[in-house]
């Protein structure tokens, strides 16, 4: 019987090795899989390449993972946060690499990676610093740059409901990068609020079919990042 549920966040991330590329869902705190990230901090894997839209807030979640020196390189679109100095300090000190990617290009690269598309052309960033050095090509009178699909060894994602097949739904704007990161990672690890029996999620409303999901952990009441930040929490 297929059952993708695993017992704990620690178990779910136990094989994330040093040097792995890890996609981490979320746009700001919405959809950030904070318990999985904390388990990865406990796990201690180092030299990671992290693909995530932002670089976290305060001293918890993604910011804490970075602060704990586990991340060698960030691939993201917006590494600035009003309330976190973790990434900026490491970056200014030359202790973390940054590949800055426009947000839509980042999303499309992740989706392409998951869809078996090695490369595609996009109009975004033509004529800008972020298009410099990239292959340009004209189609029907418009310039485009070549961008490459992104894959990852692991994805850490927060969803809402799951069943034992790994079918997922998300909650509102916490959906963001979750579905495409599940597609692009060889091993996608998802924390959900609730498990349902097969058939307990409307098959027309499943956002991520289980084929894209390897492991599911139930975290009924995930910590709220902004609240932890307000309280001045630090992890670990």
């Amino acid at each position, binding site marked *: 019987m297929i059952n993708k549920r695993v017992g704990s966040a620690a178990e779910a991330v136990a094989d994330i090795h040093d040097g792995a590329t890890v996609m981490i869902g979320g746009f700001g705190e919405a959809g950030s899989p904070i318990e999985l990230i904390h388990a990865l901090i406990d796990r201690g894997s180092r030299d990671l390449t992290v693909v995530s839209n932002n670089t976290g807030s305060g001293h918890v979640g993604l910011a804490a993972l970075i602060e704990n020196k586990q991340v060698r390189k960030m691939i993201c679109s917006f*590494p600035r946060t009003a309330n976190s100095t973790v990434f900026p300090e490491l970056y200014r000190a030359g202790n973390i690499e940054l590949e800055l990617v426009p947000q839509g290009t980042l999303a499309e690269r992740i989706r392409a990676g998951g869809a078996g598309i090695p490369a595609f052309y996009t109009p975004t960033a033509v004529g800008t610093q972020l298009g410099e050095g990239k292959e340009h090509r004209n189609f029907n009178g418009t310039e485009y740059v070549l961008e490459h699909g992104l894959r990852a060894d692991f994805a850490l994602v927060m969803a809402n409901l799951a069943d034992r097949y790994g079918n997922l739904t998300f909650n509102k704007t916490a959906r963001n990068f979750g579905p495409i990161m599940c597609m692009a990672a060889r091993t996608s690890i998802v924390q959900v609020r609730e498990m349902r029996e097969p058939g307990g999620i409307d098959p027309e409303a499943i956002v991520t079919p289980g084929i894209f999901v390897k492991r599911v952990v139930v975290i009924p009441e995930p910590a709220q990042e902004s609240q932890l930040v307000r309280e001045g929490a630090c992890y670990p």
Partner: protein
Amino acid sequence: MTTAPAKPAKPAAIGWTRDDMARLAALDIPDGSYVNLGIGIPELVAQHVPAGREIILHTENGLLGVGPAPAAGQEDPELINAGKKPVTAIPGAAFFHHADSFSMIRGGHIDICVLGAFQVAGNGDLANWSTGEPDAIPAVGGAMDLVAGVKTVFILTEHNTKSGAPKIVGKCTYPLTGLRVVGRIYTNLAVIDVRPEGLVVTAVAPGVSWEDLAAKTGAPLIDGRAKLQAKA
């Protein structure tokens, strides 16, 4: 007991207020448009949609049909906009993932976006993501995707920087967001169309003279006001 020294009077704001600017931009958004509002002053546009018009607001983090800000205490950390502020969703809203969201943007499905600016050049080049300072943390978000994909780009910005430098310039000195992408500029001083022939001023704020406007602008301006009146 001595009295505290009087604070220096705030200088009278010149030209339109931010709400005025947002109202002018909102007037130019046709009924039924799909619109993406940037962070900051552009967000005000949502509050000035004329009665009888319905526009659908897109936020690139996965929501079409953004509603007004939630009442205090009703915020949902999983229902936010691209500026990471709590929002609501209208009845008839739809949620989707990031690749679908930027398909809407890149694919030309969004009619209008309203963005802020560091600099706009006379040819429509836009710089609004980086000051290019050596120690700045570069962060681009969805700005380059929006200007590359959305049909019409409106800029809503103060006419000048806090230090008085023009934001409308002959050539952008900050890193570019996109080439020849801006359609129209709404500032506290004027409304300016970017056209093949140059920057055409279609309206000037009350109390602002053409000379004032020209002096505060770093690129040549064409007076398009008469032409408009001739049309009317």
